[in-house]
Every structure is written in structure tokens, then in C-alpha cells.
């Protein structure tokens, strides 16, 4: 479906009043050198001479097998089928859906119908959002949620009607639902044409180029501090903070470079999934376990750590050190809770010039992680990024099962796979159960890795991550 001769198609969705027609007219006016065919499902006021405007009723055709993923838009097949007979005359097709349209069948049409697939390429889905009303709409209708979930570009329109704080929180909510989409703010749909046309949005490279971090996974912890510790006893103290408890994993033998931090992060994700040991002030902290520090008593609270051999220790904490004024200090000779026994002076690294108080051990390396947070919406994004090669048979089996069980709830997916023994990247994309993949350019010198993103409703993130993990060679 990506052969160069295929005519690109942009789908424009958004609730009534979100500004679709305004945007459409702007595109047609600016792209006056091109012949654009517009298929409208909603009565609009498109009035540009060189565009061919075709009004067609939305016709949703379900198949006899009852599979919603096979549902297509009959009107598009009919109209595009006729338009392609005059293909020399069109450079681009824009489909403007009704406000209540489910984008699924629209997108599926470009996967399901062989003739449409042979002539057209879905370039991208642009969803207009009325900044002043979307919050209400999201509460009331599945369609608006799905229009956001399906989008490659979200145009947050009518921003002049909403204050900045509300806009920021709205944008954060939209990003939560769809991490793949680019969010653009506008007042009167005054966005530049190249933000909505020729997006190649079904090409993940383009998406990554624009937003290289969108695949960054989320972690159940926000902060890691690495400390170089000598043999001895240490006190971890925390002041009052935003929560009455905080989870923590103490990782022994922690390295300081990024791969080492990430490796432990993966380990800690698994630890965090296990039930936590409740640790009260004054308690010892076992290493390598999911701990839940009880912080509900007022004032500074201390927890203790015994180190048997000199090594670096990583603290993977649910919150940043700053939020609780977290400090690690040598407890050798300290009064609180210290037991008698062999003692050594804390080996304060000489090279560290960081100021520290009362025998505080300076942090050698610290970093923060993209924190998981509570998702209010059922719709969300799951990004998987892993190095290594994938066994194609296991991947097939895993994806097959995932799509069978959750295809209805998966709105969009795209990704690259590093298939074992294959010199080229495998690129895939899909809508619901429909999956389209092929080998792409060679990896060359680029690091081989896997990047996948799924946008869907109530997707089983943990089992999806585990499932993909099991596909690695």
C-alpha cells in the first residue's frame, strides 16, 4: 500500500464545531497548486474552485462474520473506486468525516479493500479538538475518545477560549490517551498545511524523528540514586513528603552507566510488581526486594541498610529524593537504632566535591524516569522499546494471540522489529485486528532494536510487555 504511485489520503475527524471545515478550506486555499478531491460526509461550506467536492452519506458496512474489524466504509470504496479512474487528475484526497464517525471503519477501508489498497495510501488521521468542549465530549461519547485514539495529529483548536492552565492539563490528558500523536495548538484552525498533509504518519520513522522520546517506557519509580558505599551501616532518612508511604528497591552492585541503570530498572519493574514488604521507621531494609517505607509519622524517619562489602548501591525510589528530602548517611556510631559491632568510617569519595552534612553520602549518579501515573481514561498508549532480536515464529504467535484477544480494543499500532537473521528492519502497522507488515530498509550500522506502540482501550500492559519479552531470542 506504499508504492509511490498511490494517492495519499488524509482523514479529518473531529466533533461538529471543532473546526474541520475551516481547516479544510485553509488547506485547499494554501494548496492551490494541487488537485485535491474532498469527500465530505457532513454538510460543510467548502468552496474552493479547483477542489472536487463529493458529498457522500456515511455508509458503514459490517460483514456477515460480525467482526467489527472487518467493517468498512462503503461510501469511500464507491467514491474512491470511481475517483481512481481519473487518477491523473488528483494529487491528494481528503476525507472529512461526520463529528460522530468512528474512525475505525474509515481506516480499515484502506487495509481491507484490495482495490482501494492498490491505488491509495492512508497518509494520516487528523483529529480536530475543540479545546473548550472536548472535556464534556470525552465524558459523553465513545466516538470522541476514539477519534483521539486514532489520530496521528491532534489539532487542539479554539485555544483562545481556554486559559493556559486548562490547555496544559487538556494537552496532558490527550497525550496520555495517545502518545503517538503530535499535538498542535491553534486558534482558528490556523495550522500550516504541512502539519496535516503528507505526514507519512503510517511511517514510524517520521514519527520518531519528530518525537524521539515517545517510545520511552514508563516506570513505577521516578528516581534512582547510586551511592558508592564502604562496608558499614547506613541510615536512609526522609522528611515529610507528599505521600504517607513510598516504594523503594535497593539494588546491590549497581553500575553507573546508562545501560547498567536501565538493566536494573527492568529488574526493578519486576520487583515493583511483587507485593511489598512494609518497612517502618527504624527497620532494616533488605536489598533486592520491593519495600514500602511507611512515612505516615510526622518528622524525619530513618531506615537502615547494612553493607557487607564495598560496593555501589542503587536506590530505585517511587518519588524523587527532593520530594522527601531523602538522604543517605553513615550510621556508624550514630545513636538511633545502631547496634554494636565492627565499624568503619564512611568512605567518602575523595573526588566528590559535593558538600554534604553530618556524614551524608553524596549521590554519585542520579537519574529520573518517566513516571507511570494514574490514567483517568480507559484509552491509553503502550510503548515497548527493547534491544535484541526477535524470534519470528514466537512474535507471530504472540501478535496473533494479542490481536485475537484484544484486537477490538487496539485502535492503532505501529512498530519496528529486529527479526533474528534478517538484515532488514521489519516494519508493521495496524488498525484493530488488521495488520500490515513488511521488511524495510537494512539496519546497516544502526543499533538493532524493537520499537512498538499500541493505542487502545484497557490494554493489558503487563502481559503485553511480558509477551513481547518472551519473543526475544
Amino acid at each position, binding site marked *: 500500500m506504499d508504492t509511490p504511485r498511490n494517492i495519499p489520503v488524509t482523514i479529518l475527524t473531529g466533533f461538529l464545531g471543532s473546526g474541520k471545515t475551516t481547516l479544510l478550506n485553509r488547506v485547499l486555499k494554501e494548496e492551490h497548486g494541487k488537485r485535491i478531491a474532498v469527500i465530505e460526509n457532513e454538510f460543510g461550506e467548502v468552496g474552493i474552485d479547483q477542489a*472536487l467536492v463529493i*458529498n457522500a*452519506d456515511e*455508509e458503514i*458496512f*459490517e*460483514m*456477515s*462474520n*460480525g467482526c467489527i474489524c*472487518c467493517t*468498512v466504509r*462503503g*461510501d469511500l*470504496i*464507491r467514491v474512491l473506486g*470511481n475517483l481512481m*479512474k*481519473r487518477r491523473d487528475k488528483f494529487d491528494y484526497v481528503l476525507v472529512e468525516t461526520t463529528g460522530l464517525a468512528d474512525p475505525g471503519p474509515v481506516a480499515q477501508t484502506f487495509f481491507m*479493500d*484490495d*482495490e482501494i489498497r492498490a491505488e491509495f495510501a492512508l497518509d494520516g488521521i487528523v483529529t480536530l479538538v475543540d479545546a473548550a468542549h472536548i472535556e464534556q465530549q470525552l465524558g459523553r461519547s465513545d466516538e470522541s475518545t476514539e477519534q483521539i485514539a486514532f489520530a496521528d495529529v491532534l489539532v487542539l483548536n479554539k485555544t483562545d477560549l481556554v486559559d493556559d492552565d486548562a490547555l496544559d492539563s487538556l494537552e496532558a490528558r490527550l497525550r496520555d490517551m495517545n502518545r503517538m500523536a503530535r499535538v498542535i495548538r491553534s486558534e482558528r484552525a490556523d495550522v500550516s498545511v504541512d502539519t496535516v498533509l503528507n505526514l507519512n504518519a503510517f511511517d514510524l520513522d517520521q514519527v520518531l524523528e519528530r518525537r524521539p522520546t515517545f517510545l520511552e517506557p514508563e516506570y513505577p519509580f521516578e528516581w534512582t540514586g547510586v551511592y558508592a558505599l564502604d562496608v558499614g551501616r547506613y541510615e536512609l532518612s526522609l522528611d515529610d513528603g507528599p505521600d504517607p508511604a513510598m516504594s523503594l528497591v535497593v539494588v546491590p552492585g549497581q553500575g553507573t552507566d546508562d545501560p547498567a541503570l536501565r538493566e536494573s530498572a527492568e529488574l526493578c519493574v519486576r520487583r515493583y510488581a511483587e507485593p511489598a514488604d512494609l518497612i517502618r521507621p527504624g527497620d532494616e531494609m533488605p536489598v533486592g526486594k520491593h519495600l514500602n517505607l511507611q512515612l505516615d509519622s510526622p518528622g524525619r524517619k530513618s531506615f537502615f541498610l547494612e553493607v557487607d562489602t564495598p560496593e555501589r548501591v542503587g536506590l530505585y525510589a517511587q518519588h524523587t529524593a527532593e520530594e522527601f528530602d531523602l538522604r543517605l548517611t553513615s550510621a556508624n556510631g550514630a545513636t538511633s537504632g545502631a547496634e554494636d559491632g565492627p565499624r568503619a568510617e564512611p568512605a567518602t569519595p575523595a573526588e566528590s566535591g559535593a558538600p554534604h552534612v553530618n556524614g551524608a553520602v553524596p549521590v554519585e549518579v542520579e537519574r529520573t524516569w518517566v513516571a507511570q501515573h494514574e490514567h483517568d481514561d480507559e484509552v491509553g498508549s503502550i510503548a515497548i522499546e527493547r534491544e535484541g532480536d526477535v524470534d519470528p515464529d514466537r512474535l507471530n504467535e504472540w501478535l496473533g494471540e494479542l490481536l485475537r484477544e484484544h484486537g477490538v480494543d487496539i485502535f492503532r499500532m505501529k512498530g519496528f522489529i529486529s527479526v533474528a537473521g534478517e538484515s532488514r528492519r521489519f516494519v508493521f502497522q495496524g488498525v484493530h485486528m488488521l495488520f500490515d507488515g513488511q521488511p524495510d530498509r537494512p539496519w546497516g550500522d544502526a543499533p538493532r532494536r524493537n520499537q512498538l506502540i499500541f493505542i487502545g482501550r484497557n490494554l493489558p500492559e503487563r502481559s503485553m510487555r511480558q509477551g513481547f519479552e518472551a519473543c526475544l531470542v
Partner: protein
Amino acid sequence: MSGLNGDAPAGVLRSGWSARVGDYAIAGGWTLRGEALVVGDAAGGVYAFEGKSGAAIWAQRGVHEGGVLAMAIHPNRPAFATAGQDGRVLVWSAAEGRVTLAVDVGSDWVENVAWSPDGRWLAASCSRQVHAYGTDGVRVWRSDDHPSTVSAIAWSGTEELATACYGRVTFFDASTGKPRQKLEWIGSLVSMVLSPDGDIVACGSQDNSVHFWRRSTEQDSEMSGYPGKPSALAFDDTGTLLATGGGEAVTVWSFQGRGPEGTQPGVLEHHAEAVTTLAFARRGMRLASGGRDGGVVVWSLGRDGQGDAIGAAPVADVVGALYWRPDGRALAALDAQGGATVWRVGD
């Protein structure tokens, strides 16, 4: 079938003539006994060529704004009707290229047009409705809205019109427009063909199957397993064979005996890409098929649906439509580049 793959016509197909119209040749037909071949194109032009030589008789460009969508040859007069994106049906005199009647059907595309077998009625579909007109162009009746845009229409006899749309085939009384029979099935019916006696109605479906009903018993069956959607369908003149596209092969079902249920169809393989159009000659179990590969093949079939290619020829692009001259001695192909190619057909 060696020798059928070259650039020259082979087997029963012999060189005839070729001509060009302005854009993708959408629809056409032979008038009466084959005096002229008329063609409508995607730019809305209508053209007539002398049947024997291919010499242009007349041409009217840009008549239907947006393009021609359908054409119907009058059964007993030298006339034909065209339908287009401009929402109109035009009736033409074949000899002079004069529009004798212009009918405004609606504001949407008119995608189907058909004369009743006796020429008394002209039916046209526009969006979700079908309209019937008398010979004077006055509308006799108009249907209620169908569940979707009407995808195909056909006369099952002089007094009854059939329509296909999403989920339903409907039969209308020609005089009153009252629905006589509704056959329902969940699926998008993209094409329809009736057996000559009007008893069997077969539809190609978007989900890559062919669904058919025997009207007398209301018994229905489904043929599935097609790799693509069967938009090309044709019944032979005796009502024995149903030829279907839906892939690179032509699949032929035989209705003789208790068939086609429980029988193996004839699978005719020659096209390198999907079959786009099928046409039976009026007599003698000869089938012509055209494909996306630009190939035209003539097949000789037995009553069991099995058969062999007996002629083949290439055209410049995707074959849009095939028309046998009524005497079966010539075959016309319309293609995506606006070519009209006619071969003489031997025995």
C-alpha cells in the same frame, strides 16, 4: 495454451480495430445488431465508432460533468442511455449522437441505468433510491430509501426490476414500484446478476464471497474462498453457468442437476492479476474475461463449468469492460487508458 501470451491476438481472436476516447473508458455497448460501438469515459464524453471499421461516427465531450458512470443499450431501437456524476440520465440517438431525452434524476451520482427487456421502462439508481421512467422520460415511480446506496440494478423480466445494496436484494413491480420480494443477508453486495429466467439472483459481496438465492424456493447459498471481492459476474444465456471473478482465476459454477451446491467449480487460470470483467456470448458457452493485467481471454466452456482458453490478446491497461457483438463474431474491450479494442472472433 502456448501462444496466448504474446502481444498479438491469438487463437480465435483476430485483429480488428482500435480507437481511443478521452479518458478511462467506463462503459459502452454495441447498438442493435452491432452497427456501432458506443463508449462513455471518465471525463464525461460519449463516443460512437463504426462497428466494422472503428471509424469515428461522432463524439460529444464533457457531456456528463464529473464523468460517465453507466450506460445501457436500448433493446430494440438504435438508442442508448448514459448516466453520470452530474445526476443526469441522457438518452441518445446512436446514429447522430443527439440527446433525445435528458432526465435529472437527483443531486447525487447516477451509478446504474438499465432498460427493461421490452424497452418500455428505463430505470436509474441515484444514491439510496431507484427511479423508473417511461419512454417519454416522465418518472413513473421512485423507491423509498434503500439501506445503503444502490450498488446494482437489473431487470428480471419486462415487469420487474431488481436492486442490490448493503444487506438486501429487492424486486420491484415495474408499473407501480411496489416491492414484491426482499432477500436479505448481512453483507455488502457489490455486484448482481440474474439468470435469464429471473429465478436465480447472484451477488458478489465485499467479504470475498458470492451469495445466491433461488427465488422460487427462497433457498440461498454462499460460495466463499475467493481471494478478492467478486465484482465481476456473468450468467450464460441458458442459465446453466455462473462465471465469477474475485481473484486471478475465473471461477465457473454449474447449475445443472443439483449444482452448484456440493460441486467443484471450473477454475480457469490465465490472468496474472485479478479478473475485472466477464461477459458471455449470447450463444455457445463462450466466455470472455478481462483482468487488471490488461489481458483479454476467450474461454470455451462445457455445461459442467470446466473449459479451456481458446483465444487471448493484450490491451494497454486494466480491462474495464467487455462487450460481445450480438452475433458473437466480434468482441470489444474497454480499458483504463481510454482504449476501445475490437477483435473479430473466429470459430
